[in-house]
C-alpha cells in the first residue's frame, strides 16, 4: 500500500464530496509530516478528539479511500451539566448506601441479604463486604429492570410474566398474570428468526424427531454428527471462506479458541470495548495483552509499531505473532469496526486479525455477511472470522471460519472440540435453515426482504430518535442503538416507564458502561413493522420528555414533528442511496 495515499485522499470521500476538516487538524498533520511517510494512519488527529467549539463528535472519516461507502459514527459529547449532575447522583446514592449499611449493621433496617450458615461463620468470608456495596445499594433498587422472565417467542412482541416485589426488589413473586404483547426492543433478534412457526421451526421439529435433543459426546470422540458437518460446510459457504467449525456456545467459542491460536511469546492487541469472552480468551491464552482505544486506528498502529520495534518486554525477543482482536458491531456502543483500516494495518504489519461478528453477522451487509460484506471486502483478508448463531439466526452457539489449515488445526487443538459436548441437532438445524433463507438457497426472496427490512428499520429508528433530540451513539447502519440516559436514577425510571407503556427495553449502567454513560439500548429487528416502531418511538419520546432525556445540543432538523403525524412524507428519504446528510458529517 503506498504510504502517501492516506494524505492525499484522506480528505476526500469516495463519492466526491469533500470532507471539510478543521484547520486545527490540518496543521497538526503537517507537523507530523515525516512520520506520516511510515505510518499508514498518522491521522491529523486533534489532541482532544472532542473539541470544545462543537460539542459533538462525528467520527473522523479519514482514509476514506479505503471505504466504499460513507462511514458515519457519532458519539456526542456529554453535556457538562449532565455530567456534573450524574456524578452528584452517584454521590448521593453512595452516601445513602453507607447510611443504610450502617443501619443494617446495627439492626435498624431489615437485612435481606442471604446469610452464611452458622457452621461456617468462622470461615474466611466468601465475599468482601465492599465487593457487594454496589449490588446491595444501587443495583438492588432497580433490579426489576433486568432478568424479566418472558414466556413466549422473543419476537417483535413478547409476553412477560408479571413480577411484584414486597421488599424493594430483594425477592420477586410472580403474580400469575401475564403482560401481553410487550414490544420487544431488547432481544438480539436482528433478522426475526426467533419464530415458533414457519420453515425454521418445522425443520427443527423434523430434526428433533430424527436425532433427539442431546449428543452426549464431544466432536472428537463420538459426537460428530452428519448435521454438524453439513452446518460447517454451509457456514463456510456463507462466509466465503475455505472451511469453518461450529461450537455449542458463542462465549466459549472465543474463550476456548483464542488460547489455541496464541500463547506465550505472542501479543494480543485488543479493543478496549471488547466483549468479556474475548478478554477471557486472551487472558487464558497466556499472551501479553495490550489494549487500544476503541476503534482508534492511530492507537492501534502505534501499538503495532512499538511492539514490532521493541519486541517482547524484558527479553527483547521479537514477538512470535501479533493477533488483533476486534468486534464487528460493538454491542454497547453501536459502533462498527473500521475494518478497511484494520485490514490495511494488519497487512502492513503482518499481524493476524480475529474478527468477532457476534452482532454483525446477518445484521450487516447486503447479503447479511457481516462487516466484511458491509464494506465489500475480501473475507480472505480476515484471518479468523468468528461469530455467533444466537442473534441473527435465532439459535445458539458460535463458529470460526477461515483457511483450511486454521480449521484443521482447531479441530485437533480447540478446547471446545475436545472437551465440550457438541451442538444440539435441532439447534444446528435452525441455523442451517435460517442461513439458507438468508442466502436465498431456499428459492425465495424472504431472506433479502428481511435484510432490507432490517436496514430500513435501523435507518428509520435511528433518524427518528436523533430528530427527537436524544443522544444516540454509534454508526448510522448499526441495528444496535444505544440512547444515553447518563443519570443512575434515570436507568430505573426509563425501564419502568417504558414497561408501563408496554415496551420492553434494555437499560445498562456501570459496570457494563463507563460510570457516567448509563444508557438504554434498543435492538432493531426485521420483525418490527413500521407501526411497532412508531408506537415505540412515540413512547420513547413521551418518556424522554418526562425524564428530560433529550440532551442533544445537535441542531435539530427543522421539520422535527412535535406530533408524530407527518412521518409518511419522509419515507422517500429512506430510499435515497446516500442517507447521510451533510449536516451530520460536518456539524461545525
Amino acid at each position, binding site marked *: 500500500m503506498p504510504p502517501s495515499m492516506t494524505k492525499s485522499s484522506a480528505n476526500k470521500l469516495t463519492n466526491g464530496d469533500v470532507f471539510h476538516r478543521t484547520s486545527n487538524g490540518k496543521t497538526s498533520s503537517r507537523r507530523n509530516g515525516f512520520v506520516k511517510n511510515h505510518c499508514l494512519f498518522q491521522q491529523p488527529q486533534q489532541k482532544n478528539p472532542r473539541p470544545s467549539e462543537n460539542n459533538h463528535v462525528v467520527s473522523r472519516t479519514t482514509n476514506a479511500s479505503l471505504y466504499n461507502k460513507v462511514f458515519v459514527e457519532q458519539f456526542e459529547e456529554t453535556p457538562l451539566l449532565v455530567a456534573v449532575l450524574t456524578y452528584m447522583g452517584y454521590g448521593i446514592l453512595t452516601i445513602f448506601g453507607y447510611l443504610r449499611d450502617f443501619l443494617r449493621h446495627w439492626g435498624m433496617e431489615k437485612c435481606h441479604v442471604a446469610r452464611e450458615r452458622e457452621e461456617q461463620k468462622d470461615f474466611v468470608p466468601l465475599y468482601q463486604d465492599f465487593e457487594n456495596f454496589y449490588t446491595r445499594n444501587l443495583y438492588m433498587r432497580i433490579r426489576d429492570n433486568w432478568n424479566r422472565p418472558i414466556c413466549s417467542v422473543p419476537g417483535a412482541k413478547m409476553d412477560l410474566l408479571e413480577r411484584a416485589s414486597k421488599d424493594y426488589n430483594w425477592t420477586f413473586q410472580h403474580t400469575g398474570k401475564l403482560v401481553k404483547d410487550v414490544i420487544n426492543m431488547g432481544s438480539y433478534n436482528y433478522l426475526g428468526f426467533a419464530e415458533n412457526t414457519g420453515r425454521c421451526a418445522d425443520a427443527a*421439529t423434523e430434526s428433533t424427531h430424527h436425532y433427539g*435433543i442431546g449428543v452426549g459426546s464431544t466432536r472428537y*470422540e463420538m459426537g*460428530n454428527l*452428519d448435521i454438524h458437518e453439513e452446518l460447517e460446510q454451509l457456514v463456510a459457504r456463507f462466509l466465503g471462506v475455505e472451511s469453518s467449525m461450529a461450537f455449542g456456545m458463542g462465549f466459549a467459542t472465543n474463550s476456548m479458541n483464542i488460547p489455541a491460536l496464541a500463547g506465550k511469546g505472542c501479543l494480543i492487541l485488543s479493543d478496549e470495548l471488547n466483549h468479556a469472552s474475548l478478554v477471557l480468551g486472551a487472558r487464558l491464552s497466556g499472551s501479553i495483552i495490550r489494549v487500544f482505544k476503541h476503534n482508534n486506528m492511530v492507537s492501534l498502529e502505534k501499538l503495532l509499531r512499538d511492539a514490532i520495534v521493541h519486541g517482547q518486554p524484558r527479553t527483547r525477543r521479537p514477538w512470535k*505473532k501479533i493477533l488483533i482482536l476486534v468486534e464487528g458491531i460493538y454491542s454497547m456502543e453501536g459502533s462498527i469496526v473500521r475494518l478497511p483500516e484494520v485490514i490495511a494495518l494488519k497487512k502492513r504489519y503482518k499481524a493476524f486479525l480475529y474478527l468477532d461478528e457476534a452482532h454483525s453477522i446477518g445484521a450487516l451487509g447486503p447479503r447479511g455477511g457481516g462487516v466484511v460484506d458491509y464494506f465489500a471486502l475480501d473475507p480472505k483478508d480476515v484471518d479468523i472470522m468468528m461469530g455467533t448463531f444466537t442473534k441473527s439466526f435465532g439459535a445458539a452457539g458460535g463458529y470460526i471460519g477461515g483457511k483450511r489449515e486454521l480449521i484443521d488445526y482447531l479441530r485437533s487443538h480447540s478446547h471446545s472440540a475436545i472437551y465440550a459436548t457438541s451442538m444440539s441437532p435441532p439447534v444446528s438445524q435452525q441455523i442451517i435453515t435460517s442461513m439458507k433463507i438468508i442466502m436465498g438457497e431456499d428459492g425465495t426472496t424472504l431472506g433479502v426482504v428481511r435484510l432490507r427490512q432490517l436496514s430500513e428499520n435501523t435507518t428509520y429508528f435511528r433518524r427518528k430518535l436523533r430528530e427527537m433530540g436524544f443522544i444516540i451513539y454509534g454508526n448510522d447502519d448499526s441495528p444496535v442503538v444505544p440512547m444515553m440516559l447518563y443519570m443512575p436514577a434515570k436507568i430505573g425510571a426509563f425501564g419502568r416507564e417504558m414497561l408501563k407503556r408496554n415496551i420492553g427495553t434494555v437499560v445498562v449502567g456501570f459496570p457494563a458502561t463507563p460510570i457516567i454513560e448509563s444508557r438504554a439500548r434498543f435492538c432493531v429487528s426485521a420483525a418490527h413493522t413500521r407501526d411497532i416502531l412508531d408506537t415505540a418511538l412515540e413512547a420513547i419520546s413521551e418518556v424522554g420528555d418526562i425524564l428530560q432525556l433529550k440532551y442533544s445540543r445537535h441542531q435539530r432538523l427543522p421539520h422535527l414533528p412535535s406530533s408524530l403525524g407527518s412521518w409518511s412524507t419522509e419515507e422517500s428519504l429512506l430510499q435515497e442511496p446516500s442517507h447521510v446528510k451533510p449536516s451530520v458529517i460536518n456539524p461545525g
Partner: protein
Amino acid sequence: MLFIDYSSAFNTIISTKLRTLGLNTSICNWILDFLMGSPQAPAYHLVLEGILILWIIRLLFSKTYKLQERSDLTEKEKEDLIEEWQPEPLVPPMSKDHPSLNYDIVTGPPSHKIIVNGKECINFASFNFLGFLDNERVKQKALTSLRRYGVGTCGPRGFYGTFDVHLELEDRLAKFMKTEEAIIYSYGFATIASAIPAYSKRGDIVFVDEAACFSIQKGLQASRSFIKYFKHNDMEDLERLLKEQEIEDQRNPRKARVTRRFIIVEGLYINTADVCPLPDLVKLKYKYKVRIFLEESMSFGVLGEHGRGVTEHFGVNIDDIDLISANMENAVASIGGFCCGRSFVIDHQRLSGQGYCFSASLPPMLAAAAIEALNIMEEDPVVILIWFRFFIFMYDLVNKYFQIDSYSAVKSVIGEVYAPALHLQLERSSGSRDTDVRMLRSIVDYCLERQIALTLARYLDKEERFLPPPSIRVVVTIEQTEEDIEKAASCIREAALAILK
C-alpha cells in the same frame, strides 16, 4: 603512587618522602607549592572542586542519557525492523493424516444403536447413561417447547433471555438436589469454568486434585488464584498441604483473614473413573475451614439411590458442600450445566458468573427436555438401581477378561465398580504416546468393524496439567443388554489379543 599524610597535611610536608617515591625535583616543588599555597587561595580551590562536582554530576547524567539515545531508533531503523520482522504462521502446519482431520461421522441419532462411518453399532461411547437421548417423552416435551418459544433465546439472561422454563428448571434442579437454589448455564464446559473464578480471586488459594478435568483447570486459570495440586484422592497429601498452609497463616494472620480457601474435587472423576472420598473431605473442610466445590458431571444422575450424586452415595449432608456443579449433557442428555447450593453462595453467580451473564441463555427446548428427564428420574429411581447391576456386570466382565486371563498383562481397567465410564489402558506402554494411541485406536477400529462403537478418551496433550495415559473409554448405559455388554467385552478382548500381541 602518592602518599600524603592527611592528618598533618597542612602542617608539615615531608618532601623527602616524595623524593623516595621517585618523583623528580620539579614535580615535588610544584606539589609543595600547591599544597602550601592552597590556604592562601581558597577561591581557586573552591572553584576547582565545584567544577569537579559538576563534572561528576554530568557524568552521572550523561550515562543514562547515552543509554536512552542508543534505544532511540531512527525512523529508518524502525522501518527496517518492521520490514524484517516475520511472524510465525498463525497455526503450525499439520500432518495430513492427523486423526482429528477425520472425525468419526455419526449419521442419525447417537443413541443405543448408532451409525458410525456408515456402520450400525452398539453405542459404548456416548455419555447417554440413562438412555434419555432418544426418549420419546423427552422429545415430546422439547417439541412442545419449540412450538411455544422457538429455538433460540436471542439474549442473555439479563436482557429478556430469562424464560419461564429456565426458572422452572432451576427450581426443579434445586428441589431434586435438595438445595436452596440452582443456576443454569447454557454450556456444560462453561459451568464450573465460570463458577470457580466467580468466587476465587487473585490471592486466594485453591487445593485441587491432580486428576481434575479440563474445565476445572480452565476455571482455575481464569481465577488467577494460587493453585496447589494434591495427589489424586490422596487425603494425606491434601492434609499435608492444608497443614503447610495453616503454618503459613499463623505466620501472617492479617493476610490469612482475607485469603479464601477452596478444595475443588470431582465426584466421579472423568479421567480416572473413581469416586472422591467425600466424607474425609468434609472432615478436612471443617478442620481447616476450607470450602468445597464439587464437580459432579459424571456422577449426577448416576450415583446415589435417586441419582443425586456422590453426596447421596456417601450420605453426606448436601449443605456441607458449598457448591455442586454438573452438566446436563451426560445423564440428563440435554445441553448445558448447572450449579446448586445455598442461596448465599449460588446467587452471587447471577452477577459474577461470566458464562452466565455474558452468554445467551439455554434454548428453552433444551431446558424443557432437561425438566422432563428430571421428571423421569424422580418418577422412577429404580432405573438407576437396575442400571447399577450393569456397571457391576460390565466391571466384572471386563475384569474377568483383562485381569484374570493369562493375557491380562496387556490391559488394565481403571475405575471403580460403580463408574459408568471405564477406562481401558495399556498395561505396558510402548514408551511412545503416539504408538500407544495408535494401538488403542486399532482396537477401537477393530471393534467398530464388529459393531461395537467405542472411543478413545481424547485430551489436549500439551494443555493438560497432568496428562492421563491414553485409554479407551467404555460407557455403560441403561439401554445395553447383558448380551450387548458380553459381546463388547469379548470383542475388546479379541481385539486386544490380535493387536497387542
